[in-house]
């Protein structure tokens, strides 16, 4: 079946099978940041935005994205680089495989809540698994990023 979607701001028209998953579709379109980590809808590595909401692309039929906007890390380079630097500063990750999904969901959190508490950060990101770290580095990176953003905003006012 033919479906039309807006992938990272660009109109895409593709032929998909009835059971093609959104994860495989976006990867076939060159969005290699989107990873398959678990096959059990649990790890968060395949996180993309569907109509601006973070979802597990491994659990969405490509057919269900017909007529919708899909955003992957490839479409959020500037935002991702700005925030990602703070994670890198902490040396938070080792292998980096979980990073794109983690950054996507962190960006979704920042869009929903401007200054989340530590508890709110942990709750929002609890569906993003990392098997190298203990999440402490990521948490420090997020808190530093939020502090930096707040400072920048205050300086601008």
């Amino acid at each position, binding site marked *: 079946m033919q479906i039309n979607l807006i992938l990272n701001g660009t109109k895409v028209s593709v032929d998909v099978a*009835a*059971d093609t998953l959104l994860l495989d579709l976006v990867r076939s379109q060159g969005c290699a940041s989107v990873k398959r980590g678990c*096959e*059990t*809808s649990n790890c968060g590595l395949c996180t993309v935005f569907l109509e601006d909401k973070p979802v597990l692309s*491994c659990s969405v*039929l490509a057919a269900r994205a017909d007529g919708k906007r899909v955003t992957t890390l490839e479409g959020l380079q500037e935002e991702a680089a700005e925030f990602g630097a703070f994670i890198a500063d902490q040396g938070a990750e080792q292998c980096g495989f979980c990073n794109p999904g983690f950054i996507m*969901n962190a960006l979704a959190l920042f869009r929903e809540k401007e200054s989340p508490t530590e508890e709110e950060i942990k709750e929002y990101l*609890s*569906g993003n698994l990392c098997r190298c770290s203990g999440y402490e580095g990521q948490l420090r990176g997020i808190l530093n990023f939020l502090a930096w953003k707040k400072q920048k905003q205050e300086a601008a006012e």
Partner: protein
Amino acid sequence: MTIREYKKAESLEEAWQLNQKKPNRVLGGMIWLKMEKINVGTAIDLSGLGLDTIEETDEGFSIGAMVTLRQLELHPGLAAYTDGAVRESVRHIVGVQLRNLATVGGSIYSRFGFSDVLTMFLALNASVELYKGGIVPLAEYAQRPYDRDILVRVIVPKEDAKFCYQSVRNSQTDIPVLTCAAAKNAAGEYRFAIGARPGKAVLYTLPADAGETPELTSARFAASIRSRIKTESNMRGSAEYRNHLAGVLVKRAVKQLG
């Protein structure tokens, strides 16, 4: 799972007709369906039928089958009515990304043993609206075998009651070891729904005795439920441990509901 054809239903009648054929399946959030080893003929998608809203009136809430668990979590009306119990019942389920997909209809239709959603809605005295079968109390629907009707909505009546929700989990986002949703109405009657036994949630209604102290009430309820509840062992906990937890959660619920 494989799917031969995908069909976005244009009406409930069309969805129902398609669903009468054995290889066809209705899609919810597709979380669990995806992990089944099945070959689906036609995947029936209800997402074009406007079933993705929560409507609140003076009488209650009407929750469309395609409403996501995340919508339940963020709905101010449900939070106010249940004192945050609905939010508490879903916030531990895997992650935001999964809760943006998983649907109320999928959870309730599936009637999974570990279902936080089923536990919560049982205590809320909810009913389900079936396309052919009409409105059925959830407590009855939970006991029914799976059929080929279409679950359209979940209906929650507003009553003068207080609610709370608790679950025990080995880790924050895992499937629960035991769930407990409780309600206390203006007449002093208590309802306890206990799930993840690991069998599906069951509902107990117990009258309070006005002459009793809260401590005695909670001890009596805990003993009553522990003697009646059927628990089993699995990798997350033993039958004995679950029975013990049931008593603890019931006591805590009574304390919280006053």
